């Protein structure tokens, strides 16, 4: 099903403004401005139960209602930094369904009474940013964006901004720092952006997919939206499927669809007749789920995934088959996090660096079991002590794979005995 976010797959040329307008595009925005109070927009979104698609799953309408109304101006910042390995949904939405996304940004801006919105894109999205700039210009020419819209007093401008290649800038406060022109490092929270955001002003930071969901919610109503998904996780979600799977790609499914449905019904199963071994449901930040029947039949929603020991996160489902050994896999993820740690807090800066050396040695077979124990301890020591979530994320694959796929490490290190002194890989 491509009902909401990936509508462009069903409707040709939806990325053309006239076509988007033929499908009631921007009518909702116009109606909101001319006939609705900002709070009414927020109320519909609240009632729809839409939850943030960036990974944390925080109720979107509630976030909007938190914005401090005694401090002005307000800002809307779109997190289009899409950097989680295995996540590639926002890119497709912005490329192929850009006006729905922009209308979502505009509805959000109106709902929180912001007159300026920024779209912060990862640096590699420079072509996309140029396209969005053209779209924004087009909207301004068409009178859909700009000063005193539709004869009201409401003015809105949207600007795109490119990051400089740091994963941490997907963390909302690091993103704000970077947008302000500073070193991209996370801020202390609280205060949260709705109180102290961009330039210290109340700010709503939302993911691309979240905002792209908004126009149809406001157009068709909360009840319609709640017709998809589960009670606590309503609506549809784009699942980015990758790894050892026949048909990787983006799939829009209702929240609550099972892993089995995604991987085998839509994704065509595992290539080469191999067996599925593990699933990382939230990209590199994910714990590894043992892909047994129980896991495969688990609904993919915010409440159910934790029952098999992981989080839904941004729903970047990485499929791992039995040709992969976990020592290789965690060496990959830890390298990534070590490279992307911003360095602001001690456990993440030093811990990811230490873990990298350990996973490297383990992967090269130049370690013994004590090193696996040490790796597990280092990961445990990082967990729960960091300034932002990156540090914790860096440990998820490590601790879960050691706990759940111990055999992989035993096989790797079978030659090395516990008593053997550790050797350094050359």
């Amino acid at each position, binding site marked *: 099903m491509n009902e909401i976010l990936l509508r462009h797959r069903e409707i040709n040329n939806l990325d053309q403004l006239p076509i988007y307008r033929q499908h009631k595009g921007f009518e909702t925005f116009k109606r909101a401005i001319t006939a609705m109070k900002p709070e009414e927009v927020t109320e519909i979104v609240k009632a729809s139960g839409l939850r943030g698609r960036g990974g944390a799953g925080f109720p979107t309408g509630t976030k909007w209602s938190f914005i401090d109304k005694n401090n002005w101006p307000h800002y809307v910042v779109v997190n289009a930094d899409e950097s989680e390995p295995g996540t590639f949904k926002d890119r497709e939405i912005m490329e192929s369904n850009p006006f729905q996304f922009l209308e979502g940004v505009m509805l959000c801006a109106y709902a929180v009474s912001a007159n300026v919105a920024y779209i912060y894109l990862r640096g590699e999205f420079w072509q996309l940013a140029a396209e969005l700039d053209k779209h924004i210009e087009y909207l301004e020419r068409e009178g859909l964006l700009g000063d005193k819209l539709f004869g009201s007093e409401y003015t809105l401008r949207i600007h795109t901004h490119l990051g400089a290649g*740091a994963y*941490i800038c997907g963390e909302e406060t690091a993103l704000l720092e970077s947008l302000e022109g500073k*070193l*991209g490092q996370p801020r*202390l929270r609280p205060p949260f952006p709705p109180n102290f955001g961009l330039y210290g002003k109340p700010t709503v930071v939302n993911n691309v997919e979240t905002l792209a969901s908004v126009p149809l919610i406001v157009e068709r109503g909360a009840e319609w939206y709640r017709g998809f998904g589960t009670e606590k996780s309503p609506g549809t979600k784009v699942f980015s499927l990758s790894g050892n799977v026949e048909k990787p790609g983006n799939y829009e499914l209702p929240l609550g669809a099972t892993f089995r449905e995604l991987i085998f019904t839509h994704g065509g199963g595992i290539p080469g007749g191999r067996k599925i071994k593990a699933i990382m449901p939230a990209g590199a930040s994910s714990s590894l789920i043992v892909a047994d029947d129980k896991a495969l039949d688990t609904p993919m929603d915010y409440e159910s995934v934790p029952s098999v020991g992981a989080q839904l996160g941004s729903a970047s489902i990485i499929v791992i088959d039995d040709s992969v050994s976990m020592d290789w896999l965690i060496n990959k993820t830890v390298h990534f996090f*070590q*490279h*992307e*740690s*911003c*360095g*602001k*807090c*001690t*456990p993440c*800066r*030093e*811990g*990811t*660096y*230490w873990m990298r*050396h350990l996973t490297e040695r383990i992967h090269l077979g130049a370690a013994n079991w004590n090193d696996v124990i*040490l790796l597990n301890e280092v990961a445990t*020591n990082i967990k*729960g*002590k*960091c*300034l932002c979530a990156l540090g914790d994320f860096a440990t998820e694959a490590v601790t879960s794979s050691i706990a759940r796929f111990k055999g992989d490490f035993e096989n790797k290190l079978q030659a090395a005995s516990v008593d053997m002194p*550790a050797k*350094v890989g050359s």
Partner: protein
Amino acid sequence: MAEALATKTEQNLVTLTIDDRKVSVAPGTWVVDAAKQAGIDIPVFCYHPKMEPVGMCRMCLVDIGRPLVDRATGQPVLEPDGTPKIQFGAKLETGCTIPVSEGMVVRGYTDKVKAARDEVLEFLLTSHPLDCPICDKGGECPLQNLTMHFGPGESRYIFDEKKRLAKHVPLGELIFLDRERCIQCARCTRFQSEVVDDPVIGFSERGRSLEIITFSEPGFDSYWSGNTTDICPVGALTTTDFRFGARPWELRQVASICTHCPVNCNTTLNTRREAKAGGQQVVKRVMPRQNEWVNEIWICDKGRFAYQYTEAVSRISQPLLRKGGKLEPVSWDEALSAVADKVKKAGSKLVTLAGGRLSNEDYFHIKKLSEKANGLALLYCQMAGGDLVAQVGLGAGSNLGELGAGSAIVVIASDLEEEAPLWWLRVKQAAERGATLIVANPRRTKLDRFARHLLRYAYGEEAAVLHAMLDSFSPKKPDQAESVKKLLRDDALKVAALELTQAENLVVFYGSEGTDLAASNALANAAANLLIATGHVGKPNNGLVAVWDKGNAQGAWDLGLRPGEDLPAQIKEAALLYIVGADPAGDDPALAAAVDGAQFVVVQELALTKTAQAADVVLPAQAFTEREGTYTSGERRVQRFYPAVPAVDGTRADFTITAQIAAALGLKLEEQIGSLAFVPLAAATESYKGLDYGKLAEVTDQWPIVGRADVYYGGTTYDNSQGLGVQLSSAAERGQSPALSFAPLAEPAAIDGLVAVPVSRLYDRGNTILPSKLLSARLEAPQVVLNPEDAESLGLEMGKPAKVTLNGVTTLVTAHIDNSIPKGTVLIPRSLGLAISGPTPVKVAA
């Protein structure tokens, strides 16, 4: 009344439990500070009590519990025994970022917390080189100390996997960075941007590659750089001065006072025996000593790095007597008897000229000698108003650190960071706390960006600005000067003036930017009038402050010395010219000629200055590091300094020498002991009455807590155990109600063509900074500063040579261009090779 007050204060406090101890602190206090106030240590690295918390290092993780509240009823949930049920978080929290709340329970001793401290420390040590045996910080290092308390006994990290980084990275020539030792706490970068507004260092790269870099030219271009080495919790930042110079535990600590400017920062001189000094003590470094009323825990780089003049090789160690046209070494007896002879004959033609850096005891003796002979006691100074400061200066108990919302500060005719850096910092911070800051200066200064009102005027109008402010809210005087009438049409000035009248507290700083002695006098008068008229005198946190060019000018004024109104003439007429700690001949060719004109010249000095070379008798004096005494700051705080190193053989203290000269006139003054010399001084000087060395040495508890056991917390700044000094009362406070006195305001003399005006620079080429090898590259070059239009019409370019003709003397200097200075004006920094005492016609050519 007292009881009611106590209850009220208690109500305003938040009570929490830290490590089973009940603690009551002000709301908004961070948990780590609350613990510190109760004497409980929560280890920190990135947190510093003078800066906003960032929660980066994670060393202060503690278990924090809060009273559980029933959501339905809003009532606290109780335990079976009736005490509130405390709910602890799943994760540990950083004590430095969590403000206290009522009923909070903080535990720093649980296994979970202990483990966390061990783990964070282990993480930090994985990248640390552990080169304590060769590290300058060793012995006073927070990381070293905390590692002794926490952390595993052995490393689980493989040595060969350690990241090797550069160990000798100069951030400019004053501060070195050891990249391996840096723990990325950002104390230094935050200090530079948040505290002193010089964001010239920052982080580059990310993750484990995060490193401190400087992006100024020259590197680490800030007057405050040395402070970062005090607050650096490891040996990453060290000063070139102390680098590999000594181990901290070998050092003696001697309390002293910085004399470079009128702030009189409290310092600790660290000394050690050295072979180069024949086994005697020498000064190894100058460190800040906490005095929250004066310099808090900071000092500027001039105070830290420019101390070598006291130990310069050019120090004289034997009296010299002119024999056959040549200065020959003689005994003290011979030199003193030669002077005694002249002093008896000179009578009222004894003219004493004293520099602004002597001690109060020295000035007292000079004044006594002068009175006895009925001679003149002159202060070598181009600023006036010390008498007014004594009348309406800051009241006793003032603290610039208390000024905030509701208070107003005026800074006029002063580039405060250049003239008195710590005052700049404290004024800036007061403005950040909400004080109304009015900066009045003809050109841009670093204080501008913190000013609520910025008043620009033409050089020469400084007093008129204050007259106009006063006139804007008081009954108009019809006979105002034309310049005042013009300024009165300025709405910004009127708005600023109105705010002054409404302010609860008002402090006025006046400097000497562009002024000569007469203009300074008019300015000081106008400033005093403004304070009197608005009722801001005779109480704490109100009053007048002179930004003197020398450290103890206020003390000299208090003890009766006055600037010479026509110095060349007064010098020339002397039968005996007795110059103490001043170098007029070196400063100004006109004064050199005047000195030559005096009948007999006695110079009392550290080194053979130009003036000393022209003397008939030269008497070698002791540096302030070699003796005891007291200074009086611009805020009129009297403070003691102590002998730190043995005196150079053959030298005597200034007050001793003066006493020995006075003996020739039958005047008996204390010759040996500073504390005894202070007794008659205090008795004879009204505002100093009741003071003695004991009182000046008293201390009280200060916040933040600093000191050797607390280096992890406040840094290596020394705690103050040797005296906070005493702030004098003003005459207004003692009930001598000051009256408005309107000196007629002279219009500035009209000068055709370019006018040179004097300004002050911190890194000038004065006698006290010139011998500092460390700062030599930072000293300003002889220069003129012009408006871009003037520069263009004269064919001058930035950084290119310019020929300056001033008072008939032509000098080759460098041209600087500043678009904020008025057209037709040429700035000439004082003590930078060109003699200038006030607005003077000047010719500049390419």
